[in-house]
């Protein structure tokens, strides 16, 4: 079957196309150039790691580091799995809790709405390092130290406000008329939330899901370090610091391990990003 031709509105003349690709190239270069550097480092032997004058191509380059990381830190695979596992659980819990909350903040007018929202945001205003010891004592009394929960429990707490805040804007944009039409038709509030609102808010929910997942996967390292002493449960972020030696950092292996470590997360995002496209807003209701 022949593909439908692109709508006229989406056609660009050649000048615009070049400008677009150039813009994307510059943008991507900014975002990816440090990784070029990092990748080059992962290819070099440790004593020749740094050399001047600067040259793009590594001399004596090899992929040795990608094999030696598994010898030096044999549990690296487990660390990656732990990160994925913890991130998945945290994301699931956060989204379960935050989606309804975001909807409530966006759509329903209830007393103390403003201060409550502010209160949630205030959680994010404290740097984790300050709350460390009281939180440690709390985790200890909950008996979750040195388990997966030691990282899941605080992780969820600190990501809920962000998720709520991110999704609220998307819920705000869904036309009220849609809800009201369903309400008038006799749908219950819960039904409206599930069947009407959620599909339309998918882009926002997807972004919040990705943001939460990465928030745990790539951040929140100080909790994992302090609350957990068992290396079986250690996530990637603490595991990577095993490449810091007594006298020097094994940079090439650290970089190799990092690249290996982020690949699963990137794959997950590839999978999730198709939900970024809006569902059914086109032509739904004329404003």
């Amino acid at each position: 079957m022949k593909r439908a031709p692109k709508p006229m509105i989406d056609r660009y003349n050649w000048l615009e196309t070049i400008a677009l690709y150039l813009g994307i190239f510059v943008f991507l270069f900014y975002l990816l150039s440090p990784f070029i550097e990092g990748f080059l480092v992962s290819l070099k032997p440790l004593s020749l790691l740094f050399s001047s004058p600067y040259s793009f191509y590594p001399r004596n380059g090899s992929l040795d580091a990608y094999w030696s990381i598994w010898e030096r830190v044999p549990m690296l695979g487990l660390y990656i799995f732990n990160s994925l596992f913890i991130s998945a659980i945290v994301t699931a819990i956060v989204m379960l809790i935050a989606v309804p909350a975001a909807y409530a903040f966006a759509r329903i007018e209830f007393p103390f709405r403003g201060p409550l929202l502010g209160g949630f945001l205030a959680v994010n205003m404290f740097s984790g390092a300050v709350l460390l010891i009281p939180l440690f004592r709390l985790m200890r009394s909950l008996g979750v130290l040195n388990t997966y929960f030691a990282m899941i429990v605080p992780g969820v707490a600190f990501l809920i406000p962000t998720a709520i805040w991110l999704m609220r804007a998307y819920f705000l944009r869904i036309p009220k008329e849609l809800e009201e039409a369903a309400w008038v038709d006799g749908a219950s509030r819960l039904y409206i939330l599930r069947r009407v609102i959620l599909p339309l808010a998918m882009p926002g929910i997807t972004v919040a899901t990705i943001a939460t997942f990465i928030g745990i996967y790539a951040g929140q390292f100080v909790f994992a370090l302090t609350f957990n002493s068992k290396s079986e449960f250690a996530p990637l972020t603490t595991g990577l610091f095993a490449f810091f030696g007594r006298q020097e950092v094994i940079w090439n292996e650290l970089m190799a391990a990092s690249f290996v470590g982020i690949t699963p997360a990137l794959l997950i995002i590839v999978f999730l990003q198709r939900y970024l496209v809006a569902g059914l807003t086109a032509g739904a209701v004329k404003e």
Partner: protein
Amino acid sequence: MRLVPKLLAGVAFALAVMPSLASAEDKTITFISCGDKMQPAHADFIKQWEAKNAGFKVAPEVVGWDQCQDKVTTLAAAGTPVGLAYVGSRTLKQFAANDLIVPIEYTEDEKKSYYPFIVETVTTDGKQWGIPVAFSTKALYWNKDLFTAAGLDPETPPKTFAEEIAFAKQIKEKASTAGFGVVAKTFDNTMHQFLHWVYSNNGSVIDADGKITLDSKENLESLTALKDITPYAEEGPTSYEQNEVRAIFLDGKLGMIQASVGAKNLLKDAKFKWGVAELPQGPSAKGPGTLLITDSLAVFKNTGVEEQAIDLAKFLTNSENQPVYEAQEGLTPLRPGAAVDKLVAEDPNWKPFIDGISFGGPEPLFTDYKGLQNTMIEMVQAVVTGQAEPADALKKAAADLEQYK
């Protein structure tokens, strides 16, 4: 909804891997060690010790170098200290002042078995607070090829501050390469590098009575020398810390650096000829000096296994076991003896690292050692960037240090 069953399965899995409550049969000594894995020597010794001490088990945890100090301290502050911890000796005074660790009893013989000054690095208030486990000293490395290119004799390293500055100048001018690696980044080893100058000029920061001795004629000479050598250093010294400066040297783009033993292993594949010598001495020096940094094993209070922890620590570091550990880790030996002589015989490059001990000095022991670091770094940076004159910077720093004692 398939999400919920998945979620429940995840929670069940997590619960299942929660460790079962340990049996109360054996008493456990928790031991935090720094690195990426337990050093094989220690792993062996721990097994031997456990065999000799029935009823006690050691539970080691390995934490990365960057974080282990903080983790040990956080656990202690939260009321759940570990039994034994690998810490930098500079932190012992703070732990002691806050009543978190137990003093260690040493016999006179035990004390004498170490190199001079090592016991000092763990002493405060007349008592010893840690069991030394690792030791490092510094020496001068120089690039013989660059010396030749600058018209200097490649076999003659500088012996005094004045020579060091002059050689650096010559390398900069004649060989168009930075002559000396100045370390001035906001990292703790900036203070260490300055202490090289201090201790190779008979200076000190704090004396045995706790009096701040930073503002002295000797230290003024040292700080001025550092200022004088800065024009011949690499561009932008405030952005390089010790290992980065070492990387520039490894690249052949620096005439001289002051570094630890680890550098000579990295230099094996170097493309230039190099040498190691004692640190140059200042005008007030009495002999070769260097910075003596030790790491210790500290025993925390209120764990119920303090005595056993001390016993374990002494066992790990006794005269038979310690050299095995040191050989594996490439550390300067803690005690003179046959092992050291063999070391120097096999690789004469070890000699400057040992000789400097005689007039060396420790990391100053302060209650708030981070405050000490911040103050010293600020002082060095102010002088290196030309924002302050050495005399003024010294006075200010000495005054600031009072609150951290």
